[in-house]
């Protein structure tokens, strides 16, 4: 019997690939291992990645307690409204998360003999299959949370260690700059009415230089910080570039306004 991996085991993060070679003995072995693990644990079903095998294979028991094996499953249709579903999973023990699910789904998959099969399911079985198919595509319950709830989730249950974290020091640097620029803009308006705020005009160039260097420091540090994470290199670079460009534009705009006051 295989061990059911639990969050935050990094093996769960592997992307499951399509099964292409149906004669590969490991496909049959995986299915047998899944069946055995399901029986031993007395559960409804498993996605292969839950026992550490990154293949798009799902085995589950239908309403008649018969095993159904889905290879390369894909949801191609659904009906009914999105419903709130409070779920847990063997790979997320002790965790309950409310997510949106479709009441009825249509699934296309292949059986062990490579035949195309179709299944339309509703209710609990549809919800179960949506969760397991998500896993076969690298998605977990917490992926369906909004950013705020996800942050709370990671805080409570821990995150994935050396994979790309959701929150960086660079975010704090830019957040501090955001507050500074907001204050700067408020003081600039206040300088029209109050003497004490006029220093933002008197010292406009030094302030501009400090804010400019702040952005450059942010860009360099962010690049350094994200380099440590394999999953974040290029796109994060694009984000850093875009974010820096936005803030430089704001700083430059404030400086131009200060020139005319």
């Amino acid at each position, binding site marked *: 019997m295989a061990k059911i991996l639990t969050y935050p085991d990094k093996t769960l993060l592997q992307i499951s690939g399509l099964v*292409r070679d149906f004669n590969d003995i490991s496909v049959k072995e995986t299915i047998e291992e899944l069946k055995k693990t399901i029986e031993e644990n007395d559960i409804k079903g498993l996605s292969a990645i839950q026992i550490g095998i990154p293949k798009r294979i799902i085995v589950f028991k239908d309403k008649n307690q018969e095993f159904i094996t889905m290879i390369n499953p*894909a*949801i191609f249709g659904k009906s009914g409204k999105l419903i709130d579903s409070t779920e847990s999973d063997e790979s997320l023990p002790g965790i309950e998360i409310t997510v*949106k699910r479709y009441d009825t789904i249509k699934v296309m998959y292949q059986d062990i003999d490579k035949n195309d099969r179709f299944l339309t399911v509703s209710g609990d079985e549809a919800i179960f299959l949506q969760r397991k198919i998500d896993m076969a595509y690298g998605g977990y319950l917490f992926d369906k949370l909004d950013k705020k709830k*996800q942050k709370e989730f990671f805080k409570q249950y821990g*995150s994935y260690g050396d994979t790309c974290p959701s929150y960086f020091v660079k975010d704090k640097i830019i957040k501090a700059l955001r507050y500074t620029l907001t204050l700067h803009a408020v003081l600039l308006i206040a300088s029209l009415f109050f003497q004490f705020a006029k220093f933002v005009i008197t010292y406009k160039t030094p302030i501009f230089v400090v804010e400019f260097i702040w952005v450059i420091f942010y860009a360099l540090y962010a690049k350094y910080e994200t380099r440590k994470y394999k999953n974040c290199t290029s*796109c994060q670079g*694009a984000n850093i570039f875009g*974010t820096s*460009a936005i803030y430089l534009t704001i700083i430059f705009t404030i400086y131009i306004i200060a020139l005319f006051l």
Partner: protein
Amino acid sequence: MARLVVLGAGVSGHTAATFAKHWLGDSHEVVVISPNSKWNWIPSNIWVGVGQMTPEDVVFELAPVYQKAGIDFKQAKAVSIHPEGKKESEKPYVTIEYTDPSKKGEVEEVEYDYLINATGPKLNFAATPGLGPEHNSLSVCTYQHAAEANDHLQIAIEKMKKGEKQKFLIGTGHGMCTCQGAAFEYIFNIEHELRKAGVRDKAEIKWISNEQFLGDFGVAGLHIKWGGHIVSSKVLAESLFAERGLDWITGAHVKEVQKGKLSYELLDGTEGEEEFDFAMLIPPFSGVGLKAYDKEGNDITDKVFMPNGFMKVDADYTPKSFEEWKGDDWPKYYQNPDYPNMFAVGIAFAPPHPISKPAKSVNGTPITPAPPRTGMPSGIIGKTVAHSIVEMIQGKADKPMHHASMAEMGAACIASTGKGLFDGTAVALTVYPVVPDYDKYPGTGRDPEYTFGEIGLAGHWIKHILHYMFMWKAQLKPGWTLIPE
């Protein structure tokens, strides 16, 4: 003096022609033949389609740019290729028919030493009865189509402001379409604009596509950084659709589009109908219908082109099952196997097979996205082929030396999900390789370290900056050669 003739002036053809001329200088001739007088930065048509850009923002006149570059431009459509020449002359040539208003209808033979076929696709609206702007649905494939789509969108918005409900249907209009990414961008931009107009609650918006699963994008899906780890684009797409209140159907072959209603067949063989007030459906692509003739004047179109009208190149076209697909099936040099001085780039080359896992409905109807060959890969391929031809013309090589297989090539894509200086968003994606190499990267066929993406405002800014960068580059303004494809 050698002559390189380029058929087509889209992303791939324009890139090939301009770089070839840049490298060859005045000692050799480059001729571009395109039926269109303007160059169009197609990715920004999405923003024309929602009124955030005008058609003028995404096009420019080709003639002055080519004149500046020293390229001979003929505004004409290619009719036939004669790779063996004719009885009187062995010099290969193409027959063209002018679309330039001053010479409209005139036919000319243009001889070549090297030929690049970069004609792009024919928008095959006829594949689905009732599909297309001339019938019952809209398109954003050209800037004219996009402008028309925006006119309809504004009418729909006015109706919604008066309290009328409107149903939007966006996606693909046939089981064998490609360019799901463009439709994906459009549905999110429509949703964004409707929110901005304050009429989102009056709109029902639905996606209909031939993808096997939401987020396939015709490339067997991608991987996105989401919630601190890497997930399939399926998870991202489903979440985005749910978050924005968009409904969806996938695995659908649109059978017919009537006024305000379409019918479709699903993978499981079931059929359905959808009513709509506004439908933007991408058509399937086919070759532009070029013919080919041998020296004796015999039709050799079947020898030069695949049945779908795309040109045969150095790919392995042996019919294979999905399990047997390999990265090596894909062309490296884009050279025609029978006529080595003839190349095809961008959408014009015939791919050996799809990228997504193929599927048929239980009735036998193929419902599989065709492989995309647009955007960054088409630019890279155009430049690479130009490089090889230039070296052959200059006598530095007797065969193409530069390769750009889509199974060895990465690509970056930024998909707009709403335009706005501060509230815009876009999904930035990189994929490596474009065509999965299942031998090199068992499982997904892709390198997980270089296949990822993110969504956010920065992505939108990058997309907007890229618009101006590529318009600048294509107009051959100072520093154009430094801007990557």
